[in-house]
Each structure stands twice: as C-alpha cells, then as structure tokens.
C-alpha cells in the first residue's frame, strides 16, 4: 500500500475519537505510519456485525411486547451477553438468570438483583424494568442512517 492509497473512508465508526495507524510506503519505498479514518470494506464488515446484533435486539423487543420474555432479553441481545457471560459479570447463577428471563419472575425481582443487572448494562434500574421505549438508536444504527444520508448528498452510486 502506498502512502496516497491509505483510505480515508470515514463513516463515523470511530466517532471522531481517534484514527488508526496504517503502514504504507512513501515515494522512496520506505515504510511509514499513516493515519486512516476508515476503509469501506472494513466498515461494511463492522456494520454487518452491528446489524446482526440489532436484528437480535429487535427480535427480543418483539418478544417482550408479546409478553414472552422479560426486558432482560433485550439488554442481553444489545450488549452481546449470553447467560454465561452475564452470570460471570453479576455473580447471579445461570439457572437464576434463565428464570429472570421469564416476565413474571422478573417482575418480582428485588432492587439488589436489578441493580446488578443495570450496572453491567450501564443503564438505570428504571430503564431495565421498563425496557427500551423504541427500537431506535442502537449502536451502529445511527451510523447506518448517516451513510444513507451521505450517499444521497453525494449522489454516490
């Protein structure tokens, strides 16, 4: 990869927090570090992973609305926690977590248990109990929208 080929396909996946180092060769053929704000194929792969997560979270939300599972299912899907990982983080036994996925059992949970879950998901107890209000604004969702906006503005083919 030559210096001038280092891609700058910014799709806000780094949220302006940083750029990443790529290695490329300069005019003399010497390797140098060049900063990149993104590369389209790589962005596509990362967005695909989020799309998958979002689909699972949306599916969980539908099941919550249908009264089949507790809000826990949504936050687990959104945060990519399986029962084992959530158990590791909360010290709540796996068997109990599975029980808490039942809406009725979940409704009777004490504050301490709820607080443990809320902390891991970085949300308030209120959000945990009520579940998400909308399906909007999952991580990655905003980015996808902004790409569509860009392509409209630029007339990208």
């Amino acid at each position: 990869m030559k210096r001038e080929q280092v891609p700058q396909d910014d799709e806000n996946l780094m949220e302006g927090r940083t750029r990443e180092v790529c290695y490329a060769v300069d005019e003399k053929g010497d390797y140098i570090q060049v900063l990149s704000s993104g590369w389209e194929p790589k962005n596509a792969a990362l967005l695909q992973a989020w799309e998958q997560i979002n689909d699972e979270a949306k599916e969980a939300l539908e099941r919550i609305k249908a009264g089949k599972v507790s809000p826990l299912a949504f936050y687990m899907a959104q945060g990519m926690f399986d029962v084992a990982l959530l158990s590791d983080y909360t010290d709540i036994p796996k068997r109990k977590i599975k029980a808490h996925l039942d809406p009725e059992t979940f409704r009777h949970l004490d504050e301490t248990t709820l607080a443990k879950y809320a902390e891991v998901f970085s949300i308030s107890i209120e959000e945990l109990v009520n579940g998400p209000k909308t399906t909007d604004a999952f991580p990655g969702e905003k980015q996808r929208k902004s790409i569509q906006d860009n392509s409209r503005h630029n007339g990208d083919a």
Partner: protein
Amino acid sequence: MTIHFQHSQSAHCENGSTANLLRYYGVDINESLAFGIGSGLFFAYLPFIRINHIPVTSFRPMPGMIFKRTAKTLGVKIFQKKFRDKIASMAALDAVLAQNIPVGLQVGVFHLTYFPRPYRFHFNAHNLVVYGKEDGRYLISDPVMETAVSLSYDELMRVRWARGMFEPRGHMYYPVKIPAQIDLPAAVIKGIRRNCREMLSIPLPFFGIRGIRYVAGQMKKWPEKLGEKQASLYLGNFIRMQEEIGTGGGGFRFIYGAFLQEAAKVLSKPRLRELSQDMTGIGDRWREFAAIGGRIIKKRNNDQETYTAMSVILMEIADREQHLFSELKKAVS
C-alpha cells in the same frame, strides 16, 4: 504523580505497549521491530472453535504471546501478576505507580469509556500503559489512541475485571531488568526464524500457510453449505479479523513489511529489503481480497466477484507467502 512517559500511537495494542514500555527504559525499538522480534505474523483458522457461531480466524498468535516473546528474546525480565481481588489489584497498581514505574495492563474493551462505541465488543485482550495518577484519575497511554487519555478509579477497575474469554483478572506487567547490552541483530534473526517456522512448518492444517489453504478450500463452499446470510457473516468476520483496528492493514502484512526493512538495516542484509517489497505486494493482495469481500457483504459485487474468486486469491496468497517465507528462511540461515 506523573511519570515522564512518551505516548506513541501504534497500529496494534500489544506491540505498541511493548514498544512504549521498553522505549521508556532506553531500548531503541519501535512497533514493527517489537512485532517482528515477537514473531507476530500468523494465520489460524479454527473451524471447531466458534464465537457467536462463527469459526475463529486469527492473523496473530495468542494474546500476550508477542509481548512475552519480544521481552524474552531481548533478554528483558518482566514482572507480571494476576489477582483474586479487585481492590488488591488497584492497590498493587498504585504502589508501583508510586515508585514512578509505568505499568502495562490487560483490559477488556466492552466498558472502556473512551473507546469508540462501535468497537466495544467483549474483547478482553486489549493492552494499555498507565503512567501516572492525577486528581484521582489514571493517566493512560492506549497505543491505538491518537492522544493520551485518562480513566477514573472505578472505570479502570471495571475494565481490568472484564469477564469472559481471556479475562484479565487485573493482569499487570512491567519490565524489571533490562540487559546492559541488547543484541538486536540476534533478536531479529531469532524472531524471523521462529516466524518462518510457524508459517511454514506447523504440522496441522489450520495454521500458517496450511491454514490459509484450508480456509480457501472451505470458503468456496460457504454459500452452498451455509446459505447466503451465514456465508456473508462468516466473510464479514474474516475481514474484520484481517483489517479491524490493530493490524496496520492487510492482516499485519504491512507491519511485517516495515519490520523486514528495519531488519535489513539492523543485519545489513539488502535481501531483506527486497523481501519487504514482496511482502507489501502480498499485503496489497490481501486488501484486494477484502475489497471484494466488502462488496459481497453489501451485495454490490459483480458476477466475477464470488466466494470462488476469493478462494482463488487466497490460494495465490498462500503460494506467494510460502515462497516468501522459504526465501526469508534462506536469507537468515
């Protein structure tokens, strides 16, 4: 308390914190040298180990391996410790910082607040260096960030105690003894030889050049075997492992190219600079491979851009890498 520590950004966190820590003690080393001496170039495809139902692909050795090997090969003694207790792990960190010693830490990125959100998966083998504490905040040189950052006590403790695969358990490390004389040429040769061995001679079909051929053989069957959706997810995962934050592009091939240029200077072997050029060409081919994959994921590929076509490119890459590592082996023998 702040230690005069020079933050320097790198492509990959492990090489980066290794190089940054060693440079603090006057070892004249950069990321690509640390990577090459630690024999960082690798390939593995493990169809029987799955994460989220997708087989594990890796372009690098096991986490921690590069650091361990680089330090050992250079003759640097490292102190390292994991903990049972969270509070004790923070107290131990504070005690070492109080002696003005910068400390390497293994952390998880899921709760790493300064990291871009789309990159915050449950990945627990990230590395950073803590170089001081000011107003209760820890000063952090995270090798993949452009500038130095900071975390509160609670935030840092949380990421040091991430759970799941490769959990850090507070893992901290720092050099305790640097040899008076470092034999850089010997270390470079050792690193190259070990890397040739791992790419060429592991007698299992999943590693090194054999691993690339193996996945090439599998990839062309993906759409039929798995269906379009799952095949596309396999492909996306493969590309992420190849290109995502930390490889410097082309699945570390460009970093290795940079290393070979350094090695040519250290060993006065112009042949290694030629081989660096070949490596650049191979890295470019990996990028072309990823570009086609990206279009398949987005369903913008043309008729020629298929899984079979990608498999053909991988076979070609495997041939070229086999030739390159055979030549490299000769060049340092």
